[in-house]
């Protein structure tokens, strides 16, 4: 299924990318909460999906997000060594190292899918990650790789 709205087709200054973020419950989601509690402002581009662990994120979720028209994907888990489930984030890291190559093969530009770490104490860092991801995706423009052309 391909979804393109009028808004995302126009690639001008006003265009606001929509990024889906898969955040682990224990570190990054808590980091996002802390950004909120500390009132750290960041672009309203992301929509957060809470998952128990970054290890839960199936590569298919990311591909599905891209084919469904999200302009960017952000996956964030605990820093290596901090995982609430001991090794889930390391499993995720291995998985996305491989997925990244596959996505590039598909023609997905590097930077559209971002994998990063943020801890529960890093509200400012979380906001910074969102700003960064937003500016990268904004430079890349709307995601139309999966638009049906026939």
């Amino acid at each position, binding site marked *: *299924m391909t*979804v393109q*709205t009028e808004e995302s087709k126009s690639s001008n200054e006003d265009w*606001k990318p*929509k990024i*889906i973020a898969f955040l682990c*419950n*224990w*570190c990054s*989601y*808590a980091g*996002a*909460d*802390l*950004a*909120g*509690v*500390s*009132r*750290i*402002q*960041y672009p*309203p581009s992301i*929509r*957060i*999906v*809470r*998952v*128990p*662990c970054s*290890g*839960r*994120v*199936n*590569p*298919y*979720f990311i591909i*599905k997000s891209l084919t*469904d*028209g*999200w302009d960017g994907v952000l996956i964030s888990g*605990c820093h290596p*060594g*901090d995982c*609430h*489930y*001991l*090794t*889930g984030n390391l*499993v*995720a890291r291995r*998985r996305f190292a491989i997925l990244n190559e596959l996505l590039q093969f598909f023609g997905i530009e590097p930077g559209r899918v971002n994998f990063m770490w943020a*801890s*529960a*104490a*890093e*509200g*400012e*860092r979380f*906001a910074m990650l969102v700003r960064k991801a937003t500016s990268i995706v904004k430079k890349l423009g709307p995601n139309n790789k999966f638009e049906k052309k026939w």
Partner: protein
Amino acid sequence: MEKVGAVMVVGAGIGGSQTSLDLADSGYKVYLIESSTSIGGVMAQLDKTFPTNDCAMCIVSPKLVETGRHQNIDLSINCVIEDVSGEAGNFIVKVRKKSLFINPDKCTGCGVCGRECPIEAIDIFNEKLAKYGATSVKYPQAVPLLYAINREVCIGCGICYGVCKAKAVEYDREDEVVDINVGAVVLSPGFDEFIPEEANLYGYGKYKNVVTSIEFERILSASGPYSGRVLRPSDGDIPEKVAFLQCIGSRDYSGVGKPYCSSVCCMYTAKEAVIAHEHMHQIKPTIFSMDVRAYGKDFDKYIIRAQKQYGVQYIRSRVSSIKEVPETKDLRLKYETQDGKIIEEDFHMVVLAVGLNPPDDAKYLAEKFGVELNQYDFAKTDLLNPVQTTKPGIFACGAFSSPKDIPDTVTQASAAAGCVNQLLYEKKGTLITEKSLPPEIFVRGQPPRIGVFICHCGINIGGFLDVPEVTRYAKTLPNVVMSDRNLYTCSADTQTIIKEKVQEYNLNRVIVASCTPRTHEPLFQETIREAGLNRYLFQMANIRDQCSWVHMNDWEAATNKAKDLVRMAVNKARQIEPIERIKLSVTPKALVVGGGISGMVAALNFASQEYETYLVEKEKELGGFAKHIYHTLEGADIQVYVKELIDKIKANKNIHVFTEAQMENIDGYIGNFKSSVIHGEKKERTEFSHGVVVVATGAKEYQPKEFLFGQNENVILQSEFERLLNETDQIKNKKSIVMIQCVGSRNDEHPYCSKMCCAEAIKNALLAKELNPDLEVTILFRDIRTYGFKEQYYRKAREAGVIFIQYDENNPPKINSDLKVEVLTPRNDKIYISTDWLVLSAGIYSDREENEELAKMLKIPLNDDSFFLEAHVKLRPVDFATEGVFIAGIAHCPKTIEDSISQANAAVSRACTILSKDEIEAEGKTARIDITRCIGCGMCIENCAYNAIELVDDRRFGTVASINQVLCKGCGACSGNCRCSAIDILGFTGEQIFEMITGRI
């Protein structure tokens, strides 16, 4: 007097929280009393923790949330103990709950009052580096999240009263005094840090760029005053050269500081240096220290990494003076190097590693509870049971009894709970309440009827986005039958409204759009469960922390985003189904592997609570390595103690002892193990079932290859020397003894400290000197690691004339066949000493083969040195990731006898949280497998950290994976990797997440 099944825990730091959780999970009512306004203590202030550099907040906050909302824990903050009466088993404690001037039942923690408060008061939590209002919580993630008015700074302007939509501000609210009846008390008030202002030596308080280590910790923290950037307070510049000064207020005989060693500073300084460099690569840390006391598990490796990987420089010297350079605000340090040179060097910033003092209220608490303090004003405890105070029924844990780090505190916290168990086990379960709930409404297969409740959160949400618009929008979404908005969805009256709406509209899914599920999901789940819905038929959209608070200046974008989040939640809610938690029976019996001190203490504790216990020992006799130890450094008689333990075990009908025994097999999982053991001369085989396992297999003494050991009969091990001192009078005709420390420890092959050797050497040196005052005793050492109160014996030994000479790892002492020892001193002088006996302090080694075998059976890991690896180095030091299996004693890492006893009692306490229940409930949101899709590739098994998955043969589908619901934690690592989408995580199914993804439009 009749015993009472309730316990009071005084002090809600990490120690008090752990004790409370252990006891509450074992069926006791717990009254947790905290003097400040939130729980978490010092750990919540830390940025990272050594030796793993874990984020302190990440690992501690789930534990605090759990403590805050546990049904059996009654948490009171801002309290003072007024009076105590009674005896072990039945105490009455009078507690004054000081008024917060805010009604805790009404306050939702929204924080508007704090933001509107015009008075800038000092914030304790950020260590005076940031400012906060007169109405404030201690820190943003505080548990419980309640605001309090500080009347000392409040000017009574009344603004907070006006802005509080929950009507929680009550200026005339009075203190409440209650009498609490409990069977036992655990004291865990923690410590206070040494304040160098009093010392007036290092320019603290006078020079801006001199900070204490705890202030520096806040500077490092991402939630600290500079958001994690390391800046100097005077001008906000990045300090390139940072000097860390050790032993500020510790090991100080001048009278200004304390004579004991604070135990933790060497490590936290190394950590701060490493993290500072990690945050700002320009920073080059230099640490000035006396001895580097990295005596804990994997601590030495951390120090080595700090030096090699992060370029942290260690200088063995005590700085003699600090002066500020007025123009630059740099600091000029004067110190003497080991080869005798006087050096003056400028640094941009100085961090003082302040020691640990007893808590300010130690004397007050001791007097109220009638317990004694030691000469340093810490709690005086039993020589062999460090959690037992001088009064029966009152226990102490954590830094209140001696300075200690987090894992030792957590271990002691569980140990104190273990001792409470022993005292009150008959009253277990008598005072806890269980809620009666209506039967669950059957909703499976019915079309979703979704109710959405949108929260204004006072003005926190409603002030920054269009709540009415979001409410209208929610109503238009498919399957949404009602949507409503509330001023505070979390307030008690709204819970009633939610329940009414569930009935009125026949709702079978409920969504709350408000704050974060991390703190509020359990509350709403409880509400819908009371309304008769399964608690998993609930979803949350976080429109406060993710919308209104972070897009405060963009009304439209925030409103649109809130709509998106609500829609995504609705999309997911359509897919959610009730989840049932699986229940499993528990066999109330324990297996203890290893019959040394740790194993025996654990077995006796289990048995005294009437749990049948199997004790397995590989030797012919119980006792383990302790049979070779006569006394501890502090003077406890180990021979007598071990004999008593053995006698008690033999007399106890609940303990089955197997000697000359070896585990053949251990099968099963938490609550339900089946094992077999081969034992006795005749190699008999016995099978039994049990619910928990305690691993207490101990370790062994290194048999040196160096220093002519085994070739010259006068080269002996420290344990043999101890025997000769205690059993013979050969020492009387000796003239000179030389001891060499760190034999087989802290080298490339065994890069860890054996922890006990320094204390053993000093103990034996003191005894030798006592028996033969003319004897010359020389100890050749690398660092003397007499941590904590053991420091006094180090000093005593020096006073008694024991000679200490430091040697370098790369230039170890040499010895010839006439027992003439050659040693190179730090000043590069060669010294020759003739000795009658050369005593080697041999390290402690694990038994690799034996441990590997047991590790395989129990599916538990070993570390690089083949000691058992616990579930979490900081907060779960006696648990394994495999549930129902616990660790005690030196099988975990080298430790003292007292610490082994603590850990044994702690293991029992942890185990009792399982054994005390008739059945255990598995986590609901776990992995489920669709065997019709599974191809049995086994990838999921590779990724499972909890050994919850195995391959089984299915009659129809061949080899397929099978998930043990009890062991599964629901992390989803298996599911993320499943190439045939055969595994799903309930509550986070692929289907549900896809629905959220398509929720973009």
